[in-house]
């Protein structure tokens, strides 16, 4: 840090702070709890909600801390009777026309209004529910975002996101005074590729995701940190999933997880909705051509094919696999004298890429493939080669092959049935490291623990590998 830190007194305790920042972010970083709506780390402060009031010695009235510069030696009070009265009154103002429909609101449980009411409010409401002003509810703004004008506190985080971050300017505040409401510019809908981030930014239930609407109450959700597999950018995400008595472990949504090195606090909508692919059309049974096989029988047949057939073996690896799995495939290829390829051409999608968080390289671990020294070109294949296809999108061209797949083969594509097909667990049901296109390595923990587990690729390969093979680990460590 170039500037010298200064000392200020907060609630009687002297603390060291950075004078280049405003008071609120510095106090929040130091662990003080100050209610706020319009201030948001990535969007900065706007000073419209008046919720973050603190008392400053020498100032006549409470000041909004989000827009107060730090002065050396200032005395700040974040607690006390008068400041709590100010907070309670502002909260009461925000809630005058709020419909208090928490039972049907998807934000309930992670709503700032609820939290602040329980912490600072707890007043007896003076407005009869029948006298409240009504605004429009469940308006479809586009891009999977629903707007409830009654629940809005007009903090304008969404407006600022579209103005300052995506530069698409779809949202605005219309009307004046207590008739103000958030809406789209006339004739426009929300249409940018990052629009659903406004549902995370919204501190209340005014902007909610159409995709998550009524799916699950948030207090049932468990959160696991992970990494999006949508492209090589590798945005950090939190995966919200729930396992209950009546429903097996299911993912309900992806949310961005803060990682300043990669994605800040945002993810693209395509990545956010890609959770569906991890739990639909999954392959559950082993197949020989089209006939269903028991798991043990399929493994025996695979062993027989690998040891008895004379064909040269080629392994095609998916570039979305974890580094650990790729390293194990290298060991597998060594054991059976096979050639290992992870052709990257199939993952190139120029239409997907943009200049922010979307990469035209759709393989999540393309960099990991390169670091492990795995060949990335497509080999010429014919039926005199035995192909072990590990979930590669272009691996279904020849008939003489064994498939290890996460998903059921798409019936629409022209596909030669494999000699043998074995299911493997999709990425949310196993764990490992990914290296993104900028060389940043991240760990994904196992998210789902289903009652009907499918073996992971590592568990499948363990049947064929020498347990004492240390070169797997050595190789992986060099890659990482």
């Amino acid at each position, binding site marked *: 840090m170039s500037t010298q830190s200064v000392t200020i007194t907060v609630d009687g305790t002297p603390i060291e702070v950075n004078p280049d920042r405003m008071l609120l972010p510095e106090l929040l970083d130091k662990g003080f709890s100050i209610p706020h709506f319009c201030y948001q780390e990535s969007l900065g402060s706007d000073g419209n909600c008046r919720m973050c009031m603190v008392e400053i010695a020498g100032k006549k009235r409470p000041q909004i801390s989000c827009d107060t510069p730090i002065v050396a030696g200032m005395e700040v009070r974040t607690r006390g009777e008068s400041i709590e009265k100010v907070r309670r009154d502002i909260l009461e103002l925000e809630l005058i026309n709020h419909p208090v429909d928490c*039972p*049907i609101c998807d934000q*309930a449980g992670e709503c700032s209004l609820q939290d602040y009411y329980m912490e600072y409010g707890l007043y007896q409401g003076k407005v009869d529910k029948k006298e409240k002003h009504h605004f429009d*509810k*469940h308006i479809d703004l586009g891009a999977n975002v629903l707007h409830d004008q009654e629940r809005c506190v007009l903090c304008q985080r969404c407006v600022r996101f579209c103005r300052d971050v995506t530069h698409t300017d779809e949202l605005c505040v219309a009307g004046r005074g207590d008739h103000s409401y958030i809406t789209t510019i006339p004739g426009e809908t929300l249409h940018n590729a990052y629009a659903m981030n406004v549902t995370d930014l919204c501190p209340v239930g005014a902007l909610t995701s159409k995709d998550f*609407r*009524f799916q699950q109450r948030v*207090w049932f959700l468990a959160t696991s940190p992970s990494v999006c597999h949508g492209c090589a950018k590798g945005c950090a995400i939190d995966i919200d999933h729930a396992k*209950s*008595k009546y429903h097996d472990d299911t993912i309900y949504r992806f949310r961005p997880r803060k990682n300043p090195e990669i994605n800040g606090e945002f993810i693209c909508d395509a990545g956010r909705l890609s959770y569906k692919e991890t739990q639909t059309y999954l392959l559950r049974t082993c197949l020989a051509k089209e006939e269903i096989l028991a798991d043990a029988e399929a493994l025996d047949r695979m062993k027989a094919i690998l040891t008895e057939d004379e064909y040269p073996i080629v392994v095609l690896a998916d570039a979305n696999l974890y580094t650990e799995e790729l390293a194990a495939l290298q060991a597998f290829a060594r054991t059976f004298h096979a050639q290992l390829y992870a052709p990257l051409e199939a993952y190139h999608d120029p239409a997907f890429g943009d200049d922010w968080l979307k990469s035209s390289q759709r393989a999540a671990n393309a960099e990991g493939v390169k670091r492990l020294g795995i060949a990335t070109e497509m080999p010429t294949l014919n039926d005199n080669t035995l192909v072990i296809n590990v979930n590669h999108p272009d691996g279904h061209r020849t008939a003489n092959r064994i498939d290890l797949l996460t998903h059921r083969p798409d019936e629409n594509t022209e596909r030669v049935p494999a000699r043998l097909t074995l299911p493997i667990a999709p990425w949310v049901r196993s764990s490992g490291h990914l290296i993104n296109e900028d060389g940043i390595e991240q760990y994904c923990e196992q998210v789902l623990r289903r009652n009907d587990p499918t073996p992971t690729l590592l568990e499948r390969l363990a049947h064929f590998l020498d347990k004492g093979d240390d070169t797997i680990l050595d190789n992986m460590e060099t890659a990482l």
Partner: protein
Amino acid sequence: MNDTVKPTRITTVPRYGDQPADKLYLPAIYAGIKVTLGHFVRNVLDITAMETLEYPEEQPTDITSRYRGLHRLTHREDGSIRCVACFMCATACPAQCINIIATERTDGIDEKMPEIFAIDTLECVFCGMCVEACPCDAIRMDTGIFSVTGKTREDFVLQRDRLLSHTGAFETEQTRNKEASHD
């Protein structure tokens, strides 16, 4: 333990059994037999005074409005379902016997309603926490129904329409709605 905290509302019960008369046991046995014989003589003289209920021919008469019977889902004044599938009951339920799947409500009365609302009465402990938790007065246990019968396990899982068909045994919904509208 903190010594400064004084236990309040705790009374010390005197212990009995140290006296020679207590150690002899005979006075206590005599007192017991006296009660039994008293009941015996009274029942022989007047058989109608017996406390035994000849269930199911005889039905209990002491079920009051506070009795927690089988659940029901209440209706709005227009007769539609009151529940908005907020999951408060399922959250409060200590037996986790309530299975709800929410869906969009399209009749314009509200936004949300349960598509599936099932109570597994084999697992329910009839504690009434669901009724306490409900913010909409949509679930109650005032049906007065105390016996559930069925031939399969599935018969005991009460589905939404069955729960809606139960009626309150102690007051009509109209009077209750009138009371609610005064709030």
